[in-house]
């Protein structure tokens, strides 16, 4: 990034037009990470579909209270994992999230960690509530 302290165009674009924002009624998995004291709260909802004995993320939605980076990371992660196999989606790293946004300022990297964490916890929540 040229200006290391500033947001990329992609971050601003996701901030303006967040993708998959909202709630999934009767989700298969849900997780809330962060807390109001530190300023960022993300909630991720997932809907899982089974095809040929494989589990896919049929739908992913987010709700976020937070700064520009918090909104952008939660928005982009939904686009990165929607339609993916569950076992692939859970491998997503915070670096991958930051990279697909064209980088994040160092002080904002924790937002990408929060987003990756939210997805992992939502999948965990699905597995715990849908034990075979």
């Amino acid at each position, binding site marked *: 990034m040229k200006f290391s*302290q500033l*947001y990329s165009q992609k971050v*601003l674009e996701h*901030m*303006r037009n*967040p993708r998959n*924002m909202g709630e999934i009624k009767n989700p298969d998995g849900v997780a*809330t990470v962060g807390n*109001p*004291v*530190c*300023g*960022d*709260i*993300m*909630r991720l909802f997932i809907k899982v579909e089974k095809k040929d004995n494989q589990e896919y993320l049929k739908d992913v939605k987010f*709700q*976020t*209270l*937070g*700064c*520009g*980076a*918090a*909104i952008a990371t939660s928005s982009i992660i939904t686009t990165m994992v929607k339609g993916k196999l569950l076992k692939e989606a859970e491998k997503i790293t915070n670096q991958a999230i930051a990279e697909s946004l064209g980088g994040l*300022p160092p*002080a*904002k990297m*924790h937002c990408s960690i929060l987003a990756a964490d939210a997805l992992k916890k939502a999948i965990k929540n699905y597995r715990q509530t849908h034990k075979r």
Partner: protein
Amino acid sequence: MKTIYLDHAATTPVDNKVFLAIESYFSQDYGNPSEPHLWGQKARGAIDQAREKVAEFLGAKPQEIIFTSGATEAINLAHKGLVEAVRKTQNKTPHIITSQVEHKAIMETCKHLEKLGWAKVTYLPVNKDGLVNLQDLEKAIQPETILVSIMYVNNEVGTIQPIKEIGELIKKINASRLSAELPSIYFHTDATQAVSFLPCEVEKLGVDLLSLSGHKIYAPKGVGALYFKKGTSLVRQQDGGGQEYRLRAGTENVPSIVALGKAIELVKNNREQKGKNTERLRKKLIEGVLKIPKVELVGHFKNQAPHIATFLVEGVEGEAMMLLLSDQGVAASSGSACTSGLLQPSHVLLAMGYQPEKAHGSLRFSLGKDNTEEEIEKVIKILPEIVQKLRRMAPKL
């Protein structure tokens, strides 16, 4: 897109009259003021004139004004320079009293002095309105106290501190300390946000040291001034040549110094009217913004600078509001954690007793001399939509 700039507490544009006044000092009258030749003398004359203007504005003598690179440097020089001078004459560690809502320039300077073991520092609490309490201040005074440093106008919320009253209190205390053979207490105020609107005559305020900045009053960035009352001992913090009465080495920033002189002269023009206009716009803005549910205004209802209006918007993060406002051509500011690069929200709002989750939703508008009613109307129209959009995005807790 037509833009609306409401971040004048962060910085102001250079006034066109200021710009014209300094143009020739870049490539025409570029001499070094320390040189006795014609070129140098022309520059020297320009600096002298600027110094007179600043001195006149403050009701001080030109010999009591030092030009610096800004208020931050002036503050560093006042605090570190005074402590260093006092340490030469007394064995005990000097004590400083300041407040919990000062600008970082004061906070970090005091912390640095503490870390070096050169000073002990008391950070006075403030009430919900951001005001320091005079009794707290009086109680905090110790035999080793040498400096009280309280800002004039808070940059984040606009609360005006009772500088004159503090000045009187210190004067009274100093009189009794004299007979007890205790060191005199100096009084510094950071007047950065006060210059445009409030009385700044140093005698009336009772201050010994006063810092100010150029770029908050329509001069360029990179210039400021320190007033130091005659007899105040300071040790310079930047060594080198003998410029600025040997208190600030380095070739003078001639164009910017001229600009500061011009800008401070312009502050005096129609000052009262400008204050009233700003006050009127602020009132309009507040009335409009408070129509949004779950929004509160912070600061003091009366002791309040006319150009700053800070709100706490529940359920929304400040930086997100700022970015969406910026998208629509409106410049504002926020004291949320995310704007500081740290994970802590504004130390000012926390000191005023607001919970972190509330402080994250802070939004500051700061008005300038060229803002109009139409601009305020537009902001009042678009802000509710932005708040609504962000609130819809947030998870229900």
